[in-house]
Every structure is written in structure tokens, then in C-alpha cells.
């Protein structure tokens, strides 16, 4: 071929836009170059029929020891996880209650005893008041009865 156009470069997409236009203009008027370009394209088209194969098994990495992050990387990354934040809240609550101090069983019993004693005292006072009221009523009626009997005896 006497022409100096690089048709392989053209067909492989390696030419810049201006060079492509120039080559195309030439191919329009040169049957030999047209044939050269057509045969190159035909070969590339044939190559494109080669089917791409699926990979038989996936390339696995997660289970590989080498890809596991080191302990300090895991610890640092866990600082930002919601689980870690939740664990912090729970731990904080436990520590707060631990340092604030929880009442012992004796203290609890004393509190219960005091509450019971207070309730009993209130009830005792209520009964005493009721007894006094009834006693005064009995005395008053007794006096009225005695006066009535004495009056009838005198008559």
C-alpha cells in the first residue's frame, strides 16, 4: 500500500479527532485504503465475538486472616459504631449507680419498720380519740339518767 495512513491506529481508536477526519476524507477517495480499513475492522469484529467468561468462583477475601484488621484497628473503628455508643450509655448508668451508692438491706428494713410504726401510731391515735368520744358520751348519758332517777325518787 502506497498511502501512509495508519488504519490500525484508526480502527483501534488511537487517532486524535483531526487525524481521524483527515484519514476518513482520504478513505473516501482511496479504494485500497478503504479495503485495508475494512479488513482491519473485520478482524477486530471477529475478535469481539470472543465471549467473556464468568469467573468460576468468587475471589474471597473476608475470610482470609491477612485481610482482617488488627485489634487496635478494630478497637479504633468500634469507637464510632452505634453499638459501642449504646454499650457506653449502659456502662455509664451502671457506674453512676455504683458510685452513688445503693441502700443496704438493714436500711431498707429500718425504713419499712419506721413506716409501719408511723401507720400503727396513727391508727392508735384514731382509736384513742374514738374511745374518748364514746366514753364522754356514756358519762353524759349516765348523768342524765342519774338526775332523772333522783327526780322521780323525790317525787
Amino acid at each position, binding site marked *: 500500500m502506497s498511502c501512509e495512513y495508519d488504519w490500525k491506529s484508526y480502527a483501534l481508536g488511537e487517532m486524535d479527532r483531526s487525524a481521524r477526519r483527515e484519514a476518513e476524507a482520504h478513505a473516501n477517495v482511496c479504494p485500497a485504503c478503504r479495503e485495508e480499513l475494512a479488513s482491519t475492522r473485520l478482524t477486530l469484529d471477529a*475478535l469481539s465475538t470472543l465471549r*467473556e467468561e464468568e*469467573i468460576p468462583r468468587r475471589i474471597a477475601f*473476608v475470610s482470609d486472616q491477612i*485481610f482482617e*484488621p488488627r485489634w487496635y484497628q478494630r478497637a479504633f473503628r468500634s469507637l464510632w459504631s452505634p453499638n459501642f455508643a449504646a454499650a457506653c450509655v449502659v456502662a455509664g448508668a451502671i457506674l453512676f449507680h455504683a458510685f452513688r451508692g445503693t441502700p443496704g438491706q438493714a436500711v431498707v428494713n429500718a425504713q419499712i419498720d419506721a413506716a409501719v410504726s408511723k401507720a400503727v401510731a396513727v391508727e392508735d391515735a384514731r382509736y384513742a380519740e374514738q374511745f374518748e368520744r364514746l366514753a364522754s358520751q356514756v358519762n353524759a348519758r349516765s348523768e342524765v339518767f342519774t338526775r332523772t332517777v333522783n327526780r322521780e325518787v323525790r317525787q
Partner: protein
Amino acid sequence: MIFREVEDRDLIAKARRGDVEAFNLLVSRWEKRVFNYLLRLLANREDALDVTQDVFLKAYQNLSKLDDAARFAGWLFRIAHNEAFSLLRRKRPESELPLELKPAETGRLLPLELSLAVESALKRLNEDQREAVLLKVYQGFKFDEIAQILDCPVSTVKSRVYTALELLKTVLAPSVMRGAGSE
């Protein structure tokens, strides 16, 4: 393609910080391309699978050495090239293939048969030519990118691709003509 590159770059940055899932996503995106490149180059499925595994292992181990995340593809195929040729050198006596320029058999050709004819024709190229064709035609790299992957001058890459295309044109001509004639 631009978005894909941006996402790859983001995944590479995450993987560099130790994010295994980000790297796994990169693997799932590239494993098929790398496997097919190695399959055609090594012409052995088990070898291709083993080397693909090694390629991604090395890629992870050396990710911090990748200067420009935008050049991940070329860098990955550079690793694949090195691993493949390391294996080919070890298996040299049995992997050498004679370069026969005998045209394919005559007869009507179906698309699958044309595909098989191409596979057979590629095996007739020498390793350097075959790899140049794989990177240019099947992986779509530019000549200068291939030169970086293979660590050789651009002129050498062009020479290999052009020579290979001439050989393939000769070998495939009857198949191509029959394939075109059958449509």
C-alpha cells in the same frame, strides 16, 4: 465511566484505611476482567483463577504504594502481568506454543464457532503479542497505558499489537469471510 472512576477512588481510599468491605467491592468489580485477561494469557482456567487470587492479594498488600488512585486499572493489570509472566517463566517448556499460520478449516461458521476460532487464533500468537492484544482490544487500554503496564516503550506495544493483528487477520480471514457470508 467517570462516575465509576470516582467510586473506585473512594473505595481505594476506604480500603487504604483498612475497610475490607470496600476492597471486596473493588474485587467484585474487577475480578471478571482480570480473570478473563489471565485466562486468555495463560490458557489455563485453574492457573488463571489462582493467579487472579494472587493478584488481588498483592493489590491489597501494596495498595498504599499506589500513587494515583485514578490509575488503579493500569496498576492492577501491571500486577496481573507480573504474576502471569512469573508463572509462565516457571512453566516455560510446556507453555510454549508454535506459531502456525495455517488458516482455519473450511465450512460454514456459526457465531460460537467464530468465537472458538478466535480463541484458537489467539493461542497461535506468542505471549507478548497475545498480551498486547488482550490489553488493547479486550481491556481497552491506550498504547501509553499498556506501555506502563508492560514497562516497555510505546513503540514496542504498537509493534506487538500491529504484528499480532496482521497474524490474526491472516489466520481468521477464512473464518471471518464465512462468518460474514453466513449472516
